[in-house]
Every structure is written in C-alpha cells, then in structure tokens.
C-alpha cells in the first residue's frame, strides 16, 4: 500500500519515488521555500529545523540545521546546480555528523500525474562504498526513529516467542 519506493540502481544510485495528490507547482515549492520545508522535512517527532537556507538559483547555498531538545543537532550544507520551475531541481548535499559525508548529487523531478505529481528523486554517490555508508548511516535523525521501531519490533517478537 505504500506510495513510496526506494531502490538502488547500478553501483552508485539510490532512486526514491513518491506520488503526491497536489500539482507539481506546490510540490516543487514545498521542496525549496524554507517556510514550507521547515514544516515537513523534520524526521521523527521532536526535531525542528531552526536554520533553513535555500538560495534557489544555480550555485545558490543550501544549509539546514536540525535540532532536538535532548538529542542535540546536526546540519546539512549544499549548493543548487539547476532549477527548472516546477519540474526539476538538481543540487549537491552533504551531512555534517559532524564530519562531512561525501557529496550526494541529487536530481529531483516533479512530473504531472493525473491531478497530482509523481516525484522521482535520484541520488548519485561517488562510489558504491559511499552509497552503502549512506544507506546504513545516512539520514541520521530518520534512522533513529527507525531504530526505536526496530526495538519495538524485536521486543514484540520476543514477547510473542515467550508466550508460545
């Protein structure tokens, strides 16, 4: 039932697709206007994006800082490469954890699909080791929530096993 797909392609790509029931203009804007980005690109509950800079022009600066009252903070920097309203964004990003991760080259396309939008995000990493690293440690905040979920999953399995 999930609307999202995530798969690896070749040695260095990760491709994510997602359908949105809103026109490409809105989905495109939601990816670059800081006021909108700050409402959704948060990761798990409790995180905020106090600093969100997007200079939406080729060569323009990107800087996002995530913060959590107990878990601290981390940030991402990058640059825009190309912007085609409202169909395509190309940018480069790296996470600082606090050491910078290798550059992730990201192309995001927004294609009309009925009354909605099909978003395709294609990430290109420098090599397959970096991709492996990103898939396992990247998106630190998101993975943390997942980790909690894994804990719950395993706890419930253990409970079920114990009862049997």
């Amino acid at each position, binding site marked *: 039932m*999930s*609307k*999202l*797909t*995530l798969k690896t392609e070749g*040695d260095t790509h990760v491709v*994510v697709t*997602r359908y*949105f*029931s*809103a026109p490409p203009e*809105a*989905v495109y*804007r*939601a990816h670059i206007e800081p006021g*909108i980005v700050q*409402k*959704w*690109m*948060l*990761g*798990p509950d409790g995180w905020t994006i106090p600093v969100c800079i997007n200079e939406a022009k080729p060569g323009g600066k990107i800087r996002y800082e995530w913060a959590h009252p107990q878990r601290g903070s981390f940030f991402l920097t990058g640059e825009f490469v190309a912007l085609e309203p409202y169909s395509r964004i190309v940018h480069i990003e790296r996470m600082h954890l606090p050491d910078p991760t290798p550059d992730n080259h990201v192309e995001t396309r927004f294609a009309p699909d009925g009354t909605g939008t099909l978003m395709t995000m294609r990430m290109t990493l420098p*090599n*397959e*080791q*970096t991709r*492996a*690293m990103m*898939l*396992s*440690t990247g*998106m630190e905040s*998101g*993975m943390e*929530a*997942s*980790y909690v*979920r*894994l*804990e719950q999953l*395993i706890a419930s*399995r*253990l409970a*079920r*096993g*114990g009862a*049997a």
Partner: protein
Amino acid sequence: MAMSELIHLDQAFGALADSTRRAILARLAEGEATVMELAEPFDMSQPAVSQHLKVLEDAGLVASRVQGAKRPRRLAKVGIDAMDQWLAMLRKALETNYDRLDEVLATMDKEKVEKKRKGEMQ
C-alpha cells in the same frame, strides 16, 4: 519461535546497534569482500574491522569462506534479512516526512482556494 532463534535475534540486534557495523553489512550486501577491502572505504584499521566482523559473525549476520590465505566475508541469510529490514525502515523514515508533506500540501491548496475566493470578492 525457538529459544535459540530468539537469542540469535537478540544478538543480531546488538550487532546492528552500531553504525559502522551497519555500514559493513550494507557494503557486504553489494557482494563478498575481504577485510582489506572492507577496511579501505571506512578509513579503519584492519584489526578494527576484524573486531566488528567478529561481532557480526557471532550474531550470524556474516559468513566467511577460506580462499588461500584470505577469508572473504559475505552476508549470511540472517544478515540479508536484516539489511532488507533496514531498507524498509529507511523507506519508513522517508515516508514520515512525506506524510507530513501531504498535510502541508493540503493546507497550501486550501490557502490558494481561499486567496482566489478573496480575490473574486474584491
């Protein structure tokens, strides 16, 4: 579920609770690799990688075979399942953000309609 499987699962969970070990698993998901090949991209000493590999092997996530003086490592079945689960979780983490975006987009749509309405009234 058999008790031995439960212990295994618990150990696997412990082995996964380390970002370097998850990265090693992700690398092995791409194919067999020697300790030297694993050490290089992670900028780690071979003994450090060997130590992580031992934890992963004890947990049943990684298997090895003998090839001359080398012992190439590969993902064991449990390791493959674990990596599948990580990918599914990465998917879920993204989905959390995009579900939020769905709500934001719905609000944007409403605001637009309201603005339009106001414009028509003036």
